[in-house]
């Protein structure tokens, strides 16, 4: 009998492997904007990982952390794209 927590652990493991693959693009990206989209993708994966860890540990305050992280991720993306377009914030 497979517990649901084992499936959550497996999902977290696969997502962390995906994050490591994205870090390659964030480090080796040829231009600045490749790094920006790599960081955006890593942030989106981090939100899902934080919610899954919160359910796994029965400490559901992690959902608030994920909400704040989603806000920060959006602000970071918009600010960096504005910096790329106009050269200043």
């Amino acid at each position, binding site marked *: 009998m497979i517990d*649901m927590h084992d*499936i*959550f652990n497996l*999902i977290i493991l*696969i*997502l962390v492997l*995906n994050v490591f*693959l*994205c870090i*390659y*693009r964030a480090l080796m990206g040829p*231009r600045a*904007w*490749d790094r*920006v*989209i*790599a960081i*955006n*993708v890593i942030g*989106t*994966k981090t*939100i*899902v990982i934080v*919610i*899954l860890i919160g*359910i796994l540990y029965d400490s*559901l305050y992690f*959902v*608030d952390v*994920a*909400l704040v992280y*989603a*806000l920060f*991720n*959006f602000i970071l*993306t*918009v600010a*960096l*794209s*504005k910096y*790329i*377009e106009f050269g200043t914030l």
Partner: protein
Amino acid sequence: MELMDFIVTALLFGGTFFFTTATLGLLRFPDLFTRLHATGKGDTLGVGLILTGLVIYLGLSPITLKIIIIMTFILLTSPVGTHCICRAVYNQGIKPWKRR
């Protein structure tokens, strides 16, 4: 109960599949616009599927409401962020990649 567990597992693995596809596109595609094409849609659909599975798993509670709020926020803001980066780079004069 068994059927609900099966549905939740299917939704979680579907979301993980789309995340993996987005990562593969980010690594393998040759240009910024093609990379954005992969990640913008793959991430949005992955978050939608995984959080829908978690909402079904947790049942009705205040935590579920917060997860639905996060899902709506990401479904609204991920295409907006993608469009912002794309417009900024296109206004720099970068032409999209073409096969020669």
